């Protein structure tokens, strides 16, 4: 009898979820798509947003300098990251300032060392974004050139070394290293194009200049370390199912060029990280509160990474509060 009731409940919930997805009401398509181009970014129809995301990342392998993948052996790497972020429009719908700061709980169990954990802030970032061009949000009509125009949002920002850099670590395993150790200035553009009233492609590209910094040498003195410049690209497909539900899939890549130490380029030190992921979002209190779930992975495929010590898989949940005009 109990098993029959459980089965009935499962069938009922599947039917109800399917019905909710099939409702004709359409969602905040352009708000959802334009707000998906970055954590804490305010969607087009909102005045401000606050977001919190809790993510769990687990290392599964590494990529060496030639892109060869190896599974982690004798090491366990687990991170829990609480990110707080948000944005607000600066008096006009075109401009917004946004930012985020992560709090990292890190765990390392490396061969021959006692397992250790540490908590600390990661590197915070802040950006300024301008909506330069707007999509009519009609979908593409080959007979009307206006329908090809996307949203174009250039942005600039900085990432600050608010986390503890690797050279500042005080633990044998480096578990307390929560940041890059370097300032980064970045500039880029987010392009969102509605293919239909419900489907959008979001492409975000940026270039980052990572400032050189001094690194203490073991025997005293310092080395001038120039982390490679960084290029990021992310392509996402966003589908707005209805007023409440939306989903997306994405692929991203981060490149950094060879580093330099005391003016000398270090060969084979460039990095590359490819990541794939998907997310699902739902308004739980329209139009104010939104929940999201996402998962992403650095695929364990030769060549998809380079000089990545800990390639990882991640799951995250997000809660966002939107503020209207």
């Amino acid at each position, binding site marked *: 009898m109990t098993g029959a009731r*459980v089965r009935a409940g499962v069938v009922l919930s599947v039917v109800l979820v399917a019905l*909710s997805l099939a409702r004709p*009401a359409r*969602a905040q398509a352009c708000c959802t798509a334009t707000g998906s181009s970055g954590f804490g970014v305010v969607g087009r129809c909102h005045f401000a947003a606050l977001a919190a995301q809790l993510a769990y990342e687990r290392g599964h392998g590494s990529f060496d300098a030639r892109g060869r993948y190896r599974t982690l052996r004798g090491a366990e790497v687990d991170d829990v990251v609480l990110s707080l972020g948000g944005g607000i429009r600066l008096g006009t719908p075109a401009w917004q300032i946004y930012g985020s700061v992560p709090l990292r709980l890190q765990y390392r169990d490396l061969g021959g060392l006692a397992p250790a954990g540490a908590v600390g802030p990661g590197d915070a970032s802040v950006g300024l974004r301008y909506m330069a061009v707007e999509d009519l949000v009609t979908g593409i*009509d080959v007979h009307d050139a206006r*329908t090809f125009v996307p949203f174009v949002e250039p942005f600039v920002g900085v990432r600050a070394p608010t986390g503890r850099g690797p050279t500042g670590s005080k633990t044998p395993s480096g578990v307390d290293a929560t940041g890059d150790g370097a300032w980064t200035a970045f500039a880029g553009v987010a392009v969102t194009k509605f293919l239909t009233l419900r489907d959008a492609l979001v492409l975000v590209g940026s270039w980052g200049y990572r400032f050189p910094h001094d690194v203490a040498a073991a025997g005293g003195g310092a080395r001038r370390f120039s982390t490679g410049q960084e290029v990021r690209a992310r392509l996402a497909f966003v589908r707005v199912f209805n*007023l409440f539900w939306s989903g997306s899939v994405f692929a991203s890549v981060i490149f950094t060029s060879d580093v330099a130490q005391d003016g000398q380029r270090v060969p084979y030190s460039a990095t590359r990280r490819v990541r794939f992921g998907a997310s699902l979002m739902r308004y739980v209190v329209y*139009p104010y509160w939104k929940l999201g779930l996402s998962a992403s992975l650095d695929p364990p495929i030769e060549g998809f990474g380079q000089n990545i010590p800990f390639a990882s898989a991640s799951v995250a949940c997000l809660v966002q509060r939107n503020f*209207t005009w």
Partner: protein
Amino acid sequence: MRLVLVLIAAGLAACAPAASPPPDDAVLVRARLVEPGGARVFALYCASCHGETGNAPGTPAVMGPRALDDFDSEPGLRGFVSRRMPPRGTLEPDEVSAVSRYLWRVARLR
């Protein structure tokens, strides 16, 4: 316990409040092409409450079947928007005109 969790999930899925029907896609596209300025004002200042298709729950429908039937004319709608919308903040006169024309066109294109 398992049954309770299943029923809670079903309840959450069903609890999405109802929304009034939106306008046809073709109507929306046509109105946005003809009144792009008004469509923009609506997207920026009105859609967050009324929904992008003007039929979000908890607010009066401003698009779709029978929306705006309480208004006899576009000037009547414009006067209402000018006095009452958005609830916090104000629109410039040209924004009021543009969004009123846009909504009136959606209503007339159905």
